[in-house]
C-alpha cells in the first residue's frame, strides 16, 4: 500500500500550516504545504493527492467576514476541480478558518431552495475572540473517519465560530443526511446533553462544532486537533499519568488511515 499524499493549502494570513503539516506527517501522510496561488495555476495537483487540508489562520485578515475572501477565491477559481477531487474519493478537511472557508466556498453542500447557502459561521455569542480548551463528542455521521461516541479535548481559538442555520428545517436536513459530525460536550455531563457557555464556547446551535458534506468526505470543524499532538499540550497534563501523545493525533491518524484504505483511482 502506498503512503497517502496530503496537501496543506494556505494563503496570505494562514497561520496553522506548520502544525497541520506536522499532524499529517506524524499520522503517516507525505505532506506538502501549498499556496493557493500555485493551486490555482495548477489545479491538476489535486490529482496527485488523497487529502487536502485547508489550514487555520486569518486568511486575508478575515476582512469583510472570516473566511469570506479565501472562500470566494476557491469558489471562483477551483470549485469544479475540488468537486471532482471529492467525487473521486479525495478527503477535504477545513480547520477553524478552513471550516469558515468551506462554508463560504459552498463545499459543505448546504443550500436552500433558492440555491443560497443556509448555514453560516458568525460572531461568537460573547462577541469576542476566545482561546480555551473544549471537549468534542463525535456523532453518528457520514464522515468515514469519525467514530461516534468518541471524545477529544481540543483548543478553540476564534472570534467567528458560532454555527447557525437558516431554520429548523435546515437542522433536520443536516441531521438526516448525517452531516453533524462533532459537538461540544461537557466531559462531566452525560453524553449528548445540552450545555451552555463556556462548554459551548461560541453559542453554536445544538453545540455543533463540526459538520461534513453528505458524502462525508468533506469535514469542517472550528477546534484545532493539530494543537493537541504532544503529551504536554493538554491543559492538565501536569496532573495526569504519563501519556504518549495528545488526543488530536488520533483524529489525523483516522483520516490518513481512511485515505490509505481507499487510494484515489
Amino acid at each position, binding site marked *: 500500500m502506498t503512503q497517502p499524499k496530503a496537501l496543506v493549502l494556505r494563503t*496570505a*494570513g*494562514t*497561520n*496553522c500550516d*506548520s*502544525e497541520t503539516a*506536522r499532524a499529517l506527517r506524524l499520522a503517516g501522510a507525505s505532506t506538502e504545504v501549498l*499556496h493557493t*496561488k500555485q493551486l490555482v495555476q495548477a489545479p491538476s495537483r489535486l490529482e496527485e493527492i488523497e487529502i487536502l487540508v485547508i489550514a487555520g*489562520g*486569518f486568511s*486575508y*485578515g*478575515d*476582512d*469583510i*467576514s472570516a473566511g*469570506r*475572501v479565501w472562500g*470566494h*477565491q476557491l469558489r*471562483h477559481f477551483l470549485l469544479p476541480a475540488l468537486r471532482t477531487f471529492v467525487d473521486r474519493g479525495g478527503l477535504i478537511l477545513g480547520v477553524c478558518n478552513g471550516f469558515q472557508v468551506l462554508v463560504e466556498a459552498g463545499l459543505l453542500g448546504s443550500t436552500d431552495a433558492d440555491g*443560497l*447557502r*443556509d*448555514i*453560516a459561521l*458568525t*460572531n*461568537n*455569542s*460573547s*462577541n*469576542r*475572540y*476566545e*482561546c*480555551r*480548551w473544549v471537549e468534542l463528542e463525535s456523532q453518528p455521521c457520514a464522515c468515514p473517519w469519525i467514530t461516534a461516541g468518541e471524545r477529544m479535548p481540543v*483548543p478553540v*481559538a476564534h472570534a467567528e465560530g458560532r454555527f*447557525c442555520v*437558516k431554520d429548523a428545517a435546515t437542522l433536520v436536513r443536516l441531521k438526516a443526511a448525517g452531516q453533524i459530525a462533532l459537538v461540544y460536550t461537557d466531559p462531566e455531563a452525560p453524553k449528548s446533553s445540552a450545555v451552555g457557555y463556556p462548554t459551548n464556547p461560541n453559542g453554536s446551535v445544538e453545540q455543533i462544532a463540526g459538520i461534513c458534506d453528505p458524502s462525508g468526505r468533506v469535514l469542517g470543524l472550528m477546534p*484545532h486537533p*493539530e*494543537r*493537541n*499532538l*504532544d*503529551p*504536554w*499540550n493538554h*491543559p*492538565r497534563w*501536569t*496532573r495526569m499519568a504519563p501519556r504518549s501523545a495528545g488526543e488530536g493525533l488520533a483524529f489525523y491518524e483516522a483520516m490518513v488511515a481512511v485515505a490509505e484504505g481507499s487510494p484515489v483511482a
Partner: protein
Amino acid sequence: MGTTASIPQETATIHALPNAWRVELFRKRAADDPDGKSLTAAARELGLAGLQSARMGRGYLLPPSLEREALEQITRELLADPLLDEVRIIAPGKAPPACADTRVLVARKIGVMDPVADTVQQALDRAGLAPAGLALEISTFRAWELHGTLSAEDLNSLATRVLFNDTIESVTIGGEGLSYGESHPKASFERVQVDLLDADHNTLVEISKRGALSLNLAEMQAIQSHFQGLGRNPSACELETLAQTWSEHCKHKTFAAIVELDGRRIDNLLKQTIKSATHELDRDWCISVFHDNAGIIAFDGDWDICFKVETHNHPSAIDPYGGAGTGIGGVIRDILGVGLGAKPIAGTDAFFVGPADLAPEDLPPGCMHPRRILRGVIAGVRDYGNRMGIPTVNGGVWFDEGFVGNPLVYAGTVGLIPRWAATKSVQPGDKILVVGGRTGRDGIHGATFSSLELHEESEMVSAAAVQIGDPVTEKRVLDALLTARDKKLYRSITDCGAGGLSSAVGEMGAECGARVDLELVPLKYQGLSPEEIWISEAQERMVLAVPPEDLSACIAVFEAEDVEATCIGHFDDSGHLRLYYEGAEMCDIEMEFLHDGTPRPVRQASWSPPAWEDPGAPRAENPGATLLELLARPNISSREWIVRQYDHEVQGTSVLKPLVGVKGEAPGDGAVIRPLEDSFRGVAITCGANPRYGRLHPGRMALAVIDEALRNSLAVGGNPTRTAILDNFSWGNCERPEQLGALVLAAEACREAALAYGTPFISGKDSLNNEYRVGDHSQAIPPTLLISALSVVSDVRRTVSMDLKCAGNLIYQVGLTRAELGGSEYLAILGLEGGVVPAPDLGRAPALFANLHLAMEAGLVRACHDLSEGGLAVAAAEMAFGGGLGLDLDIACVPTLPLAPNYDATATALFSEACTRFLVEIAPEDQTDFEVLLDDAAFALVGRVRADDTFEVRGADGAVLIQLPLSELADAHRCASRG
C-alpha cells in the same frame, strides 16, 4: 435629533452625500447583532439609559462608475452573507431611507489606513469582478442605527466615548454625508533650505519646536556649527534626518549621557551598569547582545533564541487600539530584523493603566478613561498578535493612579533563529530593497513625538504620529522573508520602525554609505514630500541589503507572497548618506556626524532617600476577610478575561499555559513552549514589575522585579544558569535631576543583581519623558522597570505547574520571610504609605535558586508557585483553588527573620512581599531527598494538602485564623474580572 453642534469643530466635518455607491450590511432582524448589544451595554454603563437598542452596519463606498448589475454581483458574492445580512444599496448621491431614530456614521480620516478596503480591492481585482481599466477606489465606514430617546448631549457623549476616536476617525451624527474620493494634500517636492547658519539661540529653539524635531539647544548648536563648517545651510531633509537619528527614542541619549550624582561622574550609564554586567559575566551562550534588534542566546544544537521587548506608550495613550497593535507589529519586526531574521514563536505584553474604577470627574482633560484604554490595548494586541499566528503567552496588567495620564504599553516577541543567521553585514554595492507595506503619511514624527511629554492637546497635534497596523501584510512579509533568508538571498536586514527609512537605511549604511532615490519608494497615494517619504513610519516595512546578483531572485520570493519589493538605492563606500528626489539632491550628510555628532552634555542627578515613615505590619483583625479582599485587588485578581482573548495555542508548542489548574483559571508563574519538534528542550518566558515599589525606592524595586522575573522562571522549570533578562525602563522626564537620580539607582541595582544571579542582560529599551501635563503641572509616572526573562528548560517533561496535585502532599515555604511590606497590596488596602520595599539578599538568593532548581530537575517538585503581590496567603490560596484541593497552613512554621515591634508576626508571615520565596508541593516519600538537595537554603515545612475543599490557616497559638471553602477564594479572585 440630527445635530452636530456639540461635537468639537475639528470632528464635525460636514460632508456632502458621497458620489459613490453605498452598500450597508446590517444583521437581519432575526440574527443576533452582538455589536449592537455591546453598544447598548456600554451606553448603560455610561448612564445613558435613553438608548433602547442599537444595530451596527458595515458600510462600503464603491465607485459611481460601476454598473448596478456589477455592484449587485460584488455585494452578493463578496460583501454580504446570504443567511445573516440585510443588504441596503444606495445609489451615488442619494441618501439611505430613514429607519432609525438616529444614525451615526464613523469613517476613517483621510490618509488613515483602511486594510479592509484594500482587501476588497484586491479580491475584486483577482476575481475580475471590477470592469477592466477601472481604478477602484473603495472605502469603509460603520453605520450605527440607534433607537431610543437620547439628547444631543447624550449622543455626543456616546460618540466621543465609545463610537469613534477623534485621532483617526470622523463622525457624522444625524447626517448622511461621507467623504469619498478626496485627494491627499500635495506637499512641496522642492529642496527646502532651512536658514540655520545665522540663527540665534531663540531662533534655533523655535526651528526645532516648529518642526516638531525634539532637538534641544545644544543639539541645534552642534548642527549649526557642523553646517557652518560646511559653509551652507542644511536642507529640511537633512535636519529631519538628524532629528530622527538623534531622537531620545532612537539614540537613548539619557542612558548614554555623562551623569553627575553626589560628586560621582558616570560616563555612559548604560555602559557602566547594564552592559558592563553582561560583559563581566561573559557567558559563552550569549550569542548577540545589545547591538542588534534583539538579544540572542544559544538554545539547542544549531538553534538560538532571541527576545525583544518594546514600549509603545505615547501612541497607545491617544489611540489605544492602533497604538498597541502597531507596538506588537513593531516588536515582531524587530525579531524579523535580528541577525538575518528569526521566526517569531511567542509574544508577551504588559500594560500599566490608571484605576479601572476611576471616577469620571477625576479624569484629567484630554485623557481617555483607563478602562477604555485597557480595552483598546487588549483589542489591539489581540487583533494584531492573533492574526500573526504568534502565541501570546505571558504578560501582566498593573493598575496605579500614576498611569492615568500616561499609560504604559509593552510588547515583546521571542524568536527562533538558526546560528548561521545570527550575524549580518552590509557590503558597498548591495542594493537597498524595501519590502512590505507602502509608504504614506501615517506615523510622521513618531520617534520625536515619543520623546515629548503628553499634554491636553496631544491627540490634536499628534494625530499624524499614530499608525494603523495591517497584520496580514506583515504576515506575508514574515512568510516571504524566512524563505528568502533560507535561500540566502540578502546580506543584511533591519526593520522600519521609529524614524522610518531614515533610521533603517541610516543604521545599515553607518559603516559605509548609502544613496537613496526617494521617488522610487512605493507610495500609498501621491503627494508626499521627499521628507515625508524619508521619515514616514508607515508600518509593515523592512529594509534589506541585497547583493546585485541576487536582486531579481529575492524580489521574486516576495512577489510569490504578494509582497511588494522595490529597490530604492544602494549602499556605497562614500561615508555619506545621500538622498535624491527625481535627480535633485535632498540630503548629503556624513555618516560619522549623523551617528556620532550628538553632543554629550553633563546631566545632573540627585537622590534623597524617601521620607516615608515605616508603618510596619499592623495586625489583621480578620485575616480571612483580608485574604478575600486581596484576591479581588485589581493587581492580583484573575486576568482570564484578557488572557482568553489572545491565542496562546497557535503553532502547537504550548507546554505550560498562562492559566493552569483543574479549571484553567489559576495564574501560572510563566509560560513554557517547546519550539523544536525533535527536541525536549523548552523556553520559559516570564516577567516582573511593580510600580508601587518604584514610587518608594527605585533601586530596591529594580532588585525586587529582577528577583520576581527569575522566581517565575525558576517556578516553571527554567534553568537559572541559562537565563537571560531584558530591561525596559519607563520613567518621567530625566532632565529633572531627581528623575535621573532614580534612574541611576535602578540601573546600578540592575548591574548588581545581574552579577549576583549570573543572569546577563541581553537587550533593553528605555522610554523616558512619560509625563502628562495639565496647564503648568506635569505629572510623572512612577518609575517602572519591566524585567522580562528568557530561560532554557532542559526537558519540558519535567516542568511544573502551580496548582496543588495530591491530598496528603507536603507544602514547604522555601526562602525567608522578612519585614518588607513597603508597596505591598496589604498596606494598600489599609491605606498606608511607605515602608520597606522588598529586596533580595543577593548573597543567599542565587544559591537558593540553584538548590531548588536541582530538586525540580530531580523530579521531586509536584507544584511550585512564587510569592509576590499579596504574599504567602495569596500564593497558597491560588495553589489551592488551582488544584481544587484544600490546604492546611501553619503560620508558626513560616521561616521568618526577627521582627521589629511594629510588625505583627501573623500579618508579616501572611502578607509580606519579601523576595526569593516559593511555596513547593512535595510527595511525603520525597521529603528527605528534597531537604537534602535544598541543603542550607532557608526552608520549612509549613503545611499539607487536604483531601477536602477547605483552606485553613492556623496561627502561632494553634487557633484557626482563616477557614474558607475553595469556591469562595476562587470567586473572590474571579469577581473583579470584567470585559
